[in-house]
């Protein structure tokens, strides 16, 4: 008789609410939600059964939660059938819902197309004093650097961090968009940022000029692919309403669910049969080898990434990455 | 010469000071005496310049201090004042309070020490204000006002919390201090003893009016009216006819009223004396005994102060007579104004 599902999420409410509303009209299932933008993992740890379903923009914490036995492996033939293995945890503890690569934003005026192909290229002395980036300790950067450490080894990551730090134009501050704006304002020529910021900026009248001043480079297309951030979902250990929660999970990976997610977040879907947004198709069009926005992503398993976090933080501290230039 | 002319001060509903004119010659001490609520504090505040008169003028020597359209601010008057409620500065210690108004820091130390010495509070120099006793606070307030070396010193009940013995000592010292420094003083008090000791002139206030303004002796012996007479001590107000019983042979006007002070009547053995009386009540006051007597017949109650250890009992019979050296003063019973 209980037809409500409780969802806890760190996503922006406006990104999920339309989806929940649609789901309600579709199935009659009421969704109660709490948008805990901060401390989601702590909420999970202290009240593991408070929600039925977790939806997060950083799937890293699902790995953390899994290790702490806070997740209930889902049991769904639909998901098994429809979701490629790289988007599922090995033990079916959580799934990836969407992903976005962490890419390079380059000044249209001051950076020649194809002068940069990999992340490591950013350490080239040519870019000394020309790169902007947000705090090294931000999840986005930590994730990126951890992936690099897994992909190319810790020494390579260290070299990258030091090289990048040496090339920074200014103290790391602001969010990803602020770096693009700095390019627009001429303070620097290159920055790192998540791909979705480009379509978002282009859609915002105030920020359109920033986006227009830059173009996107998907790094590492010749090697393993661009590093990515993942959004994900998982069931909690609450046993109030497992079937309904599983159903919602299935809906999230369904075509309709994916469309909602992609349309609101401008991330990339986990299904190939979801039509790609126009605004994403144009991304990377200045880059050789990128057609219609299709790029190569590096799907390193989350557990492998998590293992490098501490080492990366240590290196950041050592070079005092966020310090004034 | 501090001179007030036709000073008036009123609130919306009532007149607190009504058309006061007075003079205090430079270097002398005048006392403002009056019952509670008669306007003493108000007058002092007005002289100090803390309040303005509604009408009238106040002058110090040639200088016009206050008038309805001119007002020398208090801090420019060269006066200082001891407040009835002391108003010490709670965040400063005794020394800090006393030194507060001293202009040249170099003088402060010695000046403060001398004044604390004068007022017998040297040992309190570094004490906080809030755990001083009432009398100690009062002396600190006095020291503070003296420390600024004022031309005119205004004191509002400066000894109300100080015992007779200490007060006597302080009186004497303060008196010579004021004289030595040529300070004009105006003291508000409700205590006529204080007024007698201290002052060259007494201003008697009642309900905001000045009803007598004379030297102490004059006021005691020849008060402006019956009220003043009573305010300054116990009285017997007797008609000439009544008094004649006590003082046979004196030339008195039978219908007039005379002020007869209790200490001017003598008790004698029953049967002797001019008149016979019965003791109606006695009160012991140490230095004297107040005896209320009823004259034989239906005469008025008569008060007598008698000194000495003799104890009278209620109902006892005694003789009565006016002392031969006494000079009863005829009283004009209309209010002075």
């Amino acid at each position, binding site marked *: 008789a209980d037809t409500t599902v*409780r969802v806890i999420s760190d996503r*922006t*409410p*406006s990104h999920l609410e339309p989806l929940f509303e649609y789901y309600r009209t579709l199935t009659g299932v009421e969704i*109660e*939600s*709490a*948008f*805990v*933008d901060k*401390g989601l*993992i702590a*909420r999970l*740890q*202290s*009240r593991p*059964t408070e*929600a039925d379903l977790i939806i997060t923009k950083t799937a890293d914490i699902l790995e953390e939660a899994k290790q702490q036995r806070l997740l209930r492996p889902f049991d769904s033939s639909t998901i098994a059938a429809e979701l490629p293995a790289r988007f599922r945890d090995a033990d079916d503890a959580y799934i990836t819902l969407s992903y976005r690569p962490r890419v390079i934003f380059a000044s249209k005026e001051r950076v020649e197309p194809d002068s940069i192909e990999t992340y490591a290229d950013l350490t080239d002395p040519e870019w000394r004093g020309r790169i902007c980036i947000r705090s090294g*300790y*931000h*999840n986005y950067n930590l994730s990126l650097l951890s992936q690099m450490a897994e992909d190319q080894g810790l020494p390579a990551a260290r070299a990258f961090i030091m090289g990048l730090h040496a090339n920074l134009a200014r103290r*790391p*501050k602001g*969010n990803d*968009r602020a770096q693009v704006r700095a390019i627009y*304002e001429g303070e620097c020529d290159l920055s790192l940022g998540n791909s979705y910021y480009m379509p*978002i900026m282009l859609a*915002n009248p*105030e920020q359109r000029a920033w986006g227009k001043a830059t173009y996107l480079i998907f790094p590492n297309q010749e090697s393993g692919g661009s590093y990515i951030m993942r959004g994900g979902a998982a069931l909690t250990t609450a046993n109030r309403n497992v079937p309904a929660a599983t159903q919602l999970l299935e809906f999230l990976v369904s075509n309709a669910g994916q469309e909602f997610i992609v349309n609101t977040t401008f991330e990339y879907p986990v299904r190939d049969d979801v039509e790609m947004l126009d605004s994403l198709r144009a991304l990377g069009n200045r880059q050789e080898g990128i057609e219609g926005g299709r790029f190569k992503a590096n799907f390193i398993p989350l557990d492998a990434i998590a293992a490098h*976090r501490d080492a990366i*933080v240590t290196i950041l*501290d050592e070079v*005092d990455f*966020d*310090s004034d230039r | 010469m501090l001179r007030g002319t036709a000073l008036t001060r009123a609130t919306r509903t009532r007149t607190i000071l009504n058309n006061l004119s007075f003079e205090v010659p430079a270097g002398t001490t005048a006392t403002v005496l009056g019952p509670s609520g008669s306007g003493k504090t108000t007058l002092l505040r007005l002289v*100090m310049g*803390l309040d303005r008169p509604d009408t009238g003028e106040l002058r110090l020597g040639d200088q016009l201090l206050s008038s309805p359209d001119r007002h020398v601010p*208090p*801090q*420019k008057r*060269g*006066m*200082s*004042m001891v*407040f009835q*409620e002391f108003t010490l*500065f*709670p*965040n*400063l210690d005794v020394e800090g309070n006393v030194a*507060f*108004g001293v*202009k040249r820091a170099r003088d402060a130390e010695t000046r403060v020490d001398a004044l604390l010495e004068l007022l017998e509070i040297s040992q309190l120099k570094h004490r*906080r*204000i*809030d755990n001083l006793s009432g009398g100690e606070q009062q002396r600190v307030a006095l020291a503070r*006002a003296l*420390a*600024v070396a*004022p031309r005119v010193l205004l004191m509002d009940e400066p000894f109300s919390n100080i015992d007779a013995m200490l007060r006597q000592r302080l009186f004497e010292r303060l008196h010579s201090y004021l004289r030595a420094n040529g300070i004009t003083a105006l003291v508000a008090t409700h205590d006529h003893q204080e007024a007698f000791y201290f002052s060259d002139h007494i201003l008697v206030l009642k309900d905001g009016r000045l009803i007598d303004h004379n030297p102490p002796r004059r006021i005691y012996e020849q008060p402006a009216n019956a009220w003043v007479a009573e305010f300054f001590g116990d009285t017997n107000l007797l008609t000439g006819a009544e008094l004649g019983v006590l003082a046979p042979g004196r030339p008195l006007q039978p219908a007039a009223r005379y002020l007869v002070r209790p200490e001017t009547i003598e008790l004698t053995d029953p049967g002797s004396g001019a008149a016979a009386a019965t003791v109606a009540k006695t009160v012991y006051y140490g230095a004297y005994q107040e005896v209320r007597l009823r004259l034989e017949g239906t005469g008025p109650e008569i008060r007598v102060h008698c000194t000495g250890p003799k104890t009278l009992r209620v109902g006892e019979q005694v003789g009565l007579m006016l002392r031969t050296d006494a000079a009863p003063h005829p009283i004009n019973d209309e209010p002075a104004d």
Partner: protein
Amino acid sequence: MSTLRRVLTGLALALFLAPALLLLFRATAPLETAALWRLADTVLPGYVATTVLLAAAAAMLALPIGVGGAWLTTFFEFPGRRLLDSALALPLVLPSYLVAIVYRELSHRFDWSPVVESPPAAAFLLALTLYPYIYMLTQASFRRQTAGYLEAGWTLGVGRWRTTWQILLPLALPAMLLGVLLVVVEVVSDFGTASALGLRTLTIAVHRAWFSQYDQALAAQLALLTALLPLLLVAAYGGLTQGRSFTTLTNRPRSPERQHLSFSLAWLAAAACSLPVLLGFAWPMLWLLAWAAEAIDRFRLRELYGDLLNTLLLGIGTAALTLLLGLFFALTARAADGPHWRLGILSVLSLTYGMPAIALAIALLFLTGWSYQTAGGAWLADTLLLVLLATTLRFTAFASFSIESGLAGVSPRLDDALRCAGRGRLHGLLRVLLPQIRGPLVIAALLVFVITSKELTLSLVLQPFGYGSLALSIFRFAEIDLYPPAALYTLSLVLVLIYPVLSLNRWLGGRP
């Protein structure tokens, strides 16, 4: 002090200490200090230096603005004084981080607008938005002072200025110090502004340890370190006020009349009082209005409804609870012999307020975690009550400090008189003591209400399902750089808060 009272106070303090104790437990068991030492060897000194610099500079700036404003509006008459009297409190209604964002955005848009992403500039902005704490507490203290001291000064040939400087200002010392303490604690535990301006403070480090490193021990250690700074200040407060008297005897409680200033001085005073209002409120407000205008078509009153209700509920509830607790603490401290209880209480409250909000929120989460399994606990967590508990724990400092500063000026003789008047304590409390500190009480309630309405982190972490508040909405829009809707919600918040702030004077009943 009665045993019952001791026990009750002990229990209340234990409640306030619980989060800190949990942190201490997390920080020390098992004792892992490697991360902390590594940090100490690398970036920690920088964090500490920035934090201290920021706090010190903000306090040094806010103090003259707050005290100066209170002094001018209480003791002088000048053009616009009435208006400025209320307006000086206005910067309070804007969330600090939003003001920072406005100034940051302006610096990008206009060359003439100064860059604010540096610690000194941030300190300036923080001072601009936080000085009202000092202003309000100090003003309440000034208002209670008697004209008697000025008059006493005059009778000693001493003018208004020197008496003010040597008597009236020192008597307001507790209010000023406690105001400064509030400012410092707020700066130290601030996350929003520091993150908007890219500063590296200890609170940022706590967030980092928690959310980037998932290192709870380190986060707890850093949080405790952060809370240490306010404790030092409480000690300083104790030292500076110990053995001094700030009480005014109450027989003639007339307030001083305002002095009319000469023409040029009057305009100077008006300008001096206008400047902080202009910079801290009017100017950012103007831009927020402009932004809000862009989003006006997206305005849905109905969507706002729930947010508004929650904001009001939480604000009023917290104000009521903190007022009760603050009164209880302040009266306990007053009844105790010696300063120990008073300083103890101040310390505990500053500790709870001084730890970064995120630390308090997470500590509470864990403290109440077990209870979620019980029916009552689940109910607690699913209603606003847990958030209410959190805001109460955090903001009781405001109520308590304000009341403390008010009571510091009330002579203990008055308590004596109350105890001799043949009636119970409560009667005296309600009829006499509370009316004496009516100003600080109203200010306490207002401060807590305003602060709670702007509060973010606690409700973010502890929010029940289906919860929303104006502050949360503002934050969510600002976070993704959507300033027009953020501005729109801010305006709604301002509309809620501005009425009580502007009516403050009326509630204070003008002058006694």
